[in-house]
């Protein structure tokens, strides 16, 4: 093995995480979480009964020989039930997101560290050697080994029936599949010819790339391993069309709607759908412990009640949830705050992660030739951006609590520079008017400018008509654009229809959320800043061209868009952190100067309702999908209920017990 001996880093037991964790170096890099001197393991009170009855082995035999030791703000006491509200039965997947048990995971400071894995060695971003924890078990007590990785790689991902569209894209840099080796029971290696910088971030994603499966559970449903007669009978019993449909139905690691599927998550589903109340119980074989030897998670059961998403703020305000942010919006804040003391919870305000809460997207691929010419004119985009009064939007709609500026990275990102947000982001109607005059768009008698072909300059902004917030912001922009002789109309349509109209070029401008990941680090993919997918409303056809490898769409033909694409390719091929940072910076610079989308405000606050007794939930946090997995990055397995506090008043102590 080249480079320094990785073994030394693996066995390293220094209690300092950070030193061992550096990603993206050219040499062999080892990531390892030190074991820490753990005290004797303690049995969770709620499992003592089962252990006593012999239904479960004692805790020493359940946690891995080398468990992960959680660094927690406070050491908790096990027990309790966590109630949350969800909008539909499909939301059971949120427990996989919140649980955030990943092979590698982000810490709150956005470092990638091994989590389920004991350690990982990365060579040139090409060769990844994954070391599992010895004695790690699935939630049904069966060992979790390299066989589970092999089963997915050979029998699921490469099976024509199970995966008709082949391996996931993040396993295929430049369409090349990795070489997979099983080295021992606890070690596997993925080996690519070219760097694959997408691999680790995808493993750590909120909807992660699952490269392992509970092989012992799924094999009886796989053609290759099952007896044909038995499998045929099973398929018939469950009314599925064939074995592949049955296998796919049971294999729902992300969707999490199969209570029989073994899992590595902190809480595992116990309720068989359909239901209006889902119960998740603690995973007795979970791999994390605290410093005093308590097996995590602290909380015994998580209960998801399903209610209509519109009634969730009201139910939360009535104290029916112990931890809630999903389906709450900033405009619910005052209502929630009003019943804080009555229902024993606190409303915290976390920042959100998108680059802009609401952004305007000029469609560079619009069908109308005159409009297309205008949208591609840099001066026009800059003028529109200069005529948006971001301060007014912030004050009127967000009580001045948001961050004004363009649709780009947030100040919390290590790549952030103030000029990315401020470029062409001030309110300057005079300059905007000057730019529009330069283009030659003359004002008509009614003060509205005219297109070169004599039509009035009336921009129709299409939206999905789902949020009143968007239409409120657009109303304010309408007023300020009126001052530069541009008229704005809103056209709401249904979500699918809206996207279709943008993709096909029927819409010339649209409004939506800004870039998803405003917190990116250099190791995360800059795909949102280059035409990589049809979903990008500013250049859907160029994105489609890349997505379909040239089969549909159009090749980008604006010089800066082409350059962004090149930079993206360079980022993919890059190995070192310096190279990644360099390509990121150039892309951000181009993005700022070219104003491909017009941002308004970002970092809008997300109300997070937390029960008064729930501990270890941070006061200040980021509520973001990727990276973040919403609560996941703060590891809810370490949250706990403090029941010791004496009741301050005569009111009932338990959370929201309803007198009857």
């Amino acid at each position: 093995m080249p480079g320094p001996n990785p073994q030394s880093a693996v066995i390293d037991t220094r209690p300092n995480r950070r030193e061992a964790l550096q990603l993206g170096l050219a040499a062999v890099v080892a990531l390892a979480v030190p074991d820490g001197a753990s005290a004797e393991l303690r049995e969770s009170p709620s499992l003592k009964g089962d252990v006593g009855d012999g239904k479960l082995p004692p805790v020493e035999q359940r946690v891995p020989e080398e468990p992960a030791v959680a660094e927690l703000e406070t050491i908790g006491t096990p027990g309790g039930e966590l109630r949350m509200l969800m909008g539909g039965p499909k939301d059971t997947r949120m427990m996989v997101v919140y649980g955030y048990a990943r092979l590698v995971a982000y810490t709150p400071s956005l470092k990638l560290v091994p989590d389920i894995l004991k350690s990982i060695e990365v060579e040139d971003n090409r060769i990844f050697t994954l070391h599992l924890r010895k004695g790690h078990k699935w939630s049904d007590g069966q060992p979790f080994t390299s066989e589970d990785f092999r089963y997915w790689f050979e029998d699921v991902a490469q099976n024509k029936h199970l995966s008709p569209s082949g391996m996931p894209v993040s396993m295929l840099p430049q369409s090349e599949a990795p070489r997979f080796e099983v080295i021992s029971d606890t070690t596997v290696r993925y080996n690519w010819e070219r760097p694959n910088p997408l691999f680790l971030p995808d493993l750590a994603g909120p909807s992660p790339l699952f490269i392992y499966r509970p092989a012992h559970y799924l094999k009886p449903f796989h053609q290759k391993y099952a007896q044909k007669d038995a499998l045929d009978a099973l398929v018939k019993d469950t009314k599925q069309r064939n074995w592949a449909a049955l296998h796919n139905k049971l294999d729902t690691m992300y969707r999490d709607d199969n209570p029989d599927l073994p899992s590595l998550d902190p809480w595992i589903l116990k309720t068989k759908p359909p239901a209006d109340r889902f119960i998740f119980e603690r995973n007795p074989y979970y791999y994390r412990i605290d410093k005093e030897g308590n097996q995590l998670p602290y909380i015994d059961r998580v209960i998801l009640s399903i209610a209509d998403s519109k009634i969730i703020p009201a139910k939360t305000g009535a104290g029916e949830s112990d931890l809630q942010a999903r389906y709450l919006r900033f405009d619910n804040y005052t209502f929630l705050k009003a019943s804080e003391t009555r229902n024993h919870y606190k409303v915290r305000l976390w920042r959100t992660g998108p680059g802009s809460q609401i952004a305007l997207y000029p469609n560079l691929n619009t069908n109308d030739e005159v409009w297309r010419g205008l949208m591609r004119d840099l001066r026009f985009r800059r003028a529109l951006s200069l005529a948006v009064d971001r301060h007014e939007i912030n004050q009127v709609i967000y009580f001045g609590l948001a961050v004004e500026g363009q649709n780009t990275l947030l100040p919390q990102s290590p790549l952030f520079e103030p000029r990315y947000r401020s470029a062409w982001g001030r309110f300057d109607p005079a300059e905007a008017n000057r730019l529009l005059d330069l283009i030659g768009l003359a004002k008509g008698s009614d003060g509205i400018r005219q297109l070169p072909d004599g039509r009035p300059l009336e921009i129709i902004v299409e939206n999905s008509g789902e949020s009143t917030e968007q239409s409120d912001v657009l109303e304010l922009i309408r007023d300020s654009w009126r001052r530069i002789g541009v008229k704005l109309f809103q056209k709401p349509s249904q979500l699918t229809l809206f996207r279709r109209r943008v993709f096909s070029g029927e819409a010339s401008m649209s409004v939506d959320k800004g870039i998803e990941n405003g917190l990116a680090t250099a190791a995360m993919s800059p795909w949102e800043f280059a035409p990589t997918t049809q979903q990008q409303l500013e250049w859907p056809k160029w994105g489609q061209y890349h997505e379909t490898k040239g089969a549909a769409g159009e090749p980008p033909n604006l010089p800066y868009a082409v350059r962004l694409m090149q930079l993206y390719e360079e980022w993919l091929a890059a190995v070192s952190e310096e190279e990644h940072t360099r390509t990121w910076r150039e892309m951000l610079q181009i993005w700022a100067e070219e104003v491909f989308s017009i941002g308004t405000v970002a970092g809008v606050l997300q109300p997070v309702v937390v029960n008064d007794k729930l501990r270890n939930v941070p006061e200040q946090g980021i509520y973001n999908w990727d990276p973040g997995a919403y609560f996941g990055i703060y590891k809810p397995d370490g949250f706990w209920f403090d029941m010791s506090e004496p009741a301050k008043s005569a009111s009932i102590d338990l959370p929201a017990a309803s007198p009857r």
Partner: protein
Amino acid sequence: MLRYLVHRILIMIPTLVAISIVIFTIINLPPGDYFSTYIAELQSSGEAADLAKINFLKAQYGFDRPLWEQYIFWAGGLLHGDMGYSFAYNLPVNQVVGDRLLMTFIVSFTTILFTYAVAFPIGVYSATHQYSWADHTLTLLGFLGLATPSFLLALVLLYLANVYFGVSIGGLMDPKYVDRPWSLDKTLSVAAHLWIPVIVIGTAGTAAMIRRLRANLLDELQKQYVVTARAKGLRPLKLLFKYPLRMALNPFISDIGSLLPHVISGAAIVSVVMSLPTTGPMLLDALRSQDMYLAGSFLMFMAFLTVIGVFISDLALAALDPRIRLQAGRRQ
């Protein structure tokens, strides 16, 4: 009479076939299908969909085939009781609907009972005491009930019930009973939650029923046989219940036809606002997400109930009202 029955039953078949075609066409009219709606929804919230799995399902359920083939596949399944597969729930439709039917029945029957219990005495009273101050007051109340938007009333009652009685918001029982077997506590919890939807759904219906009963009864009370009976000294109450009220009931019996599907679908909007575990919100959701087999089979089930309901009410009318029976006999 037997010929009439057979004729009525036979004519149901082409009716249902026609309905099924209309339903299937309308569900497929909006652009896209369940999967494209699902992908768009996920992407708009920043989540990426598992495309491999979606492509797999699309191929499995024949989304690439022409529409008429999909229709035949669906209608053929219905014939032998297979209602298809719900994509949103990842389960056969039968299993998805099953659990909610009971709750829907409870809500709807209680509402109907409530409506009858309130509307009948008031309707009769205001017809017999026409233009008295009590008639005017009750009429005003009835109009208020008709005019109040039920979803608003629902929200107000929910809030008040929570603040003053500690009843959990929305749903039909306290969350902790949802997955428990039936017990006394659970029944009490249901009763504590049930009155809000019953009042809310009931008010509008009650008002309409009062007006209709009053109008029908007024018509009858003017008739000569009533005058004759009065002149012959029949006791007023006995007279009222035995003759004019019976005649005034005909419209209610013919209502059974529309009542049956209403019992199943529930009041969708109110149920959505109150987050009731009934079938109404599920149907609305299925239509919005284009979960086509769930929506289609459900609508088909309701159409079937309507057809049966109309049939039953026709039979009941014939049985109860000799005039209709005799006329039918004469025509044949």
